[in-house]
């Protein structure tokens, strides 16, 4: 599949400048296996989604089934039921069962799709091999970018990128749709969808000792105080805040004191509780809980990969003026990101020829000019051939003969 062929109109051709398809050596296979082990989230998220659907569907079945059965026993226990009424009653139970059957079919269709998605991802991991590595890497970059877009709430770009590359099964757009509803509401200062989400995931949030729901309740309480609806605020606190007292007394007390201060307070401890940024904080908190629940990293994958990549690439030489353009760290934006990151570390020398940018190893050993500058044998041989055995040092202009060179042995 040509990954970059997008329906981009006439003016936007689609040949990507990444046609590196030289077959890589076998050492890359081990490296590939290692990098596949980074893909936990890739398999985990669709599975959590699948699991969630299965559980929800099962709950529906259990609930409906029990109510049909209790419907029968109710009817059997009554003695004032006419025959017609009994028939009507049973008929209504039958149609209820029909409805359940339809729900079940629909539910198992969704389960099936989600199972397929889980499988598609396993297949995708399996498809990576040394031959299609650059294409596979390209695809991984797109997946990582979609993940970034989704976490940053750039949903349109996420959808478009996924569609145009035909990788919908490999990204978690539908999972994030669920998050989007909650986030949008919180940004509009509405807690209802967030509370519904908490109720949906009650047992798991409890397991991880999440206090997200508590934070939501606190915020609702503060809003009541802001509106000077004090009586309602107190009733609210009794009902929704008190249960958290045993574990979060301090915070509860602090928020409760706002009753005394009102929203116009200048007291810093309480003023901050009325700030609109509290809502942003709730959004962040939600994102964290959401990611945890699905087994995602809290940071966008892109940031994690970028950090590691920048550190691995960062050397003191990257910040010099003659840094090659091929090094990402020759660019201002990458340098800026890499600034607070550690430098890479090497246990063995790695020498790159200044002229050809190729590695100098035993096959292409380094040679030393009388002025101490070192270049690869390949580059120097080529230069000597073109200039009757004369060598000109490209960095100093020093001229010498090819036979004046000595080999350097790097261990």
């Amino acid at each position, binding site marked *: 599949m040509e990954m970059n062929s997008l329906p981009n109109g006439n003016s936007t051709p689609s040949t990507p400048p990444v046609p590196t398809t030289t077959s890589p050596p076998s050492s890359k296979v081990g490296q590939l296996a290692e990098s596949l082990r980074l893909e936990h989230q890739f398999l985990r998220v669709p599975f959590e989604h699948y699991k969630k659907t299965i559980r929800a569907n099962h709950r529906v079945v259990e609930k409906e089934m029990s109510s049909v059965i209790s419907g029968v026993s109710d009817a059997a226990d009554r003695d004032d039921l006419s025959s017609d009424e009994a028939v009507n009653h049973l008929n209504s139970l039958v149609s209820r069962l029909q409805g359940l059957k339809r729900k079940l079919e629909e539910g198992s269709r969704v389960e099936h799709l989600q199972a397929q998605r889980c499988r598609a991802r396993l297949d995708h991991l399996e498809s990576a091999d040394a031959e299609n590595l650059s294409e596979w890497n390209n695809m991984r970059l797109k997946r990582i970018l979609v993940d970034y877009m989704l976490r940053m709430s750039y949903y349109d770009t996420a959808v478009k990128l996924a569609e145009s590359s035909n990788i919908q099964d490999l990204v978690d757009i539908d999972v994030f749709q669920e998050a989007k509803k909650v986030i949008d509401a919180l940004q509009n200062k509405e807690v209802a969808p967030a509370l519904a989400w908490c109720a949906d995931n009650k047992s798991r949030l409890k397991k991880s000792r999440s206090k997200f729901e508590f934070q939501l309740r606190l915020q609702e309480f503060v809003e009541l105080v802001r509106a000077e609806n004090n009586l309602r605020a107190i009733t609210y606190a009794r009902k929704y805040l008190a249960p958290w007292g045993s574990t979060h007394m301090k915070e509860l007390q602090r928020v409760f004191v706002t009753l005394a201060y009102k929203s116009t307070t200048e007291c810093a401890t309480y003023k901050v509780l009325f700030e609109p940024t509290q809502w942003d904080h709730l959004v962040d908190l939600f994102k964290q809980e959401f990611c945890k629940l699905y087994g995602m990293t809290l940071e966008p994958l892109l940031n994690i990969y970028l950090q590691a990549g920048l550190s691995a690439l960062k050397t003191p030489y990257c910040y010099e003026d003659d840094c090659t353009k091929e090094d990402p760290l020759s660019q201002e934006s990458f340098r800026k990101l890499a600034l607070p990151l550690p430098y890479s*570390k090497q246990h063995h020398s790695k020498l790159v020829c200044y002229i050809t940018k190729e590695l100098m190893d035993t096959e292409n050993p380094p040679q030393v000019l009388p002025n101490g500058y070192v270049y690869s044998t390949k580059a120097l041989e080529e230069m000597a051939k073109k200039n009757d055995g004369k060598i000109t040092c490209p960095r100093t202009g020093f001229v010498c003969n090819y036979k004046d060179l000595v080999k350097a042995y790097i261990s």
Partner: protein
Amino acid sequence: MELNTIKDAFDRVSKKQKLSCSNTQEVIDQIDQEIEQALQKIQSASNPDSLLDHRPILVELKTKLKDMAPVTQLESTQKDLNSALSKYPKLLEKSFNPDISKAYRNIEFDTHTVNQIIASHFYRQGLFEIGDLFVQEANEPESVAVIKSQFQDMYQILEAMKSQNLEPALKWATSNADRLKHNGSDLLMKLHSLQFVEILQKGSRDEALNYARTYLSPFASNHMDAIQKLVVCILWAGRLDRSPYYQLLSPTNWDKVVEELTRQFCKILGQSYESPLAVTVVAGAQGLPPLLKFMNVMAGKKHEWQTMKQLPVPVELDKEYQFHSIFVCPVSKEQSTEENPPMLMSCGHVLCKQSIMKMSKNSTKSFKCPYCPSDIDAIRCRMLYF
């Protein structure tokens, strides 16, 4: 990691799910049948005189359903399914790195910078529509407008080449001829050759000859062989496919020129050939495994990790990501610096200055090379520049 075991494990989960699904359906059908039967009985036995006839039927139905115990009947398959559902994530955690953010430093990246990098990446890959949408959605000011228009130019040239139109490419290459020459690229000559072959294919000898005179002859000094071959092709004008030079028609010739043009275009723009974002992410995928391994071993040193000036473990990147020479002294294991430069000893082996100073007791006496039997005089060691 065995992907097959994971696949098998997943198959088990989905098998259990299917089983539970069909089981549920069966149970519902059973309930349905019982109720339907009861309904029929009531309706057929229904005697307008008797009001109580249906009651025993209902009671019987109730007992039947109770004996059937549909909810408990589902419980066992559900239990199986649940255990499969909780086993699989455990297997994933065991087979994969469950949390790759362990190797993450708590440093906020500047979102604006990251977005700019992403937008540039889209443009340079030719994904202009996605780039535009992204810039709009991320509300990034037009900081990437320049790179967009630059790469638009390039993709216009490439797109024309796809429909065998070399004009834009030739125009660009001609106006950048000096810089191409400086870069040691013979792109212009290659483009002219392609054009020449195109003309020949159309069968016009005179035109081809004229073209060769005007555009190919200036390259004669460096490309005599190639030009001779091309000119001889005039003999087969219009039927090049049956000539000994049919390879000139191969589409791979075009691919090669497209690649060279892309390379040179990027170079002249001052851009890299590969997308820097793609390079960094691949480097990240190669760097993360050793870092995570270190983090797992050094679980207690989480705090130090946040402040380290240098990675605690070496990260082996592929050859193509080695952009700079790094010299590590084989004696002290330290990377060379300006104060501690690499030095060439008379035997050809290289050590860092400090190591040589140590072994020679500050150049007061000769010492043995750690790699060969030579006697080394520190004074005669030369500084190297890689």
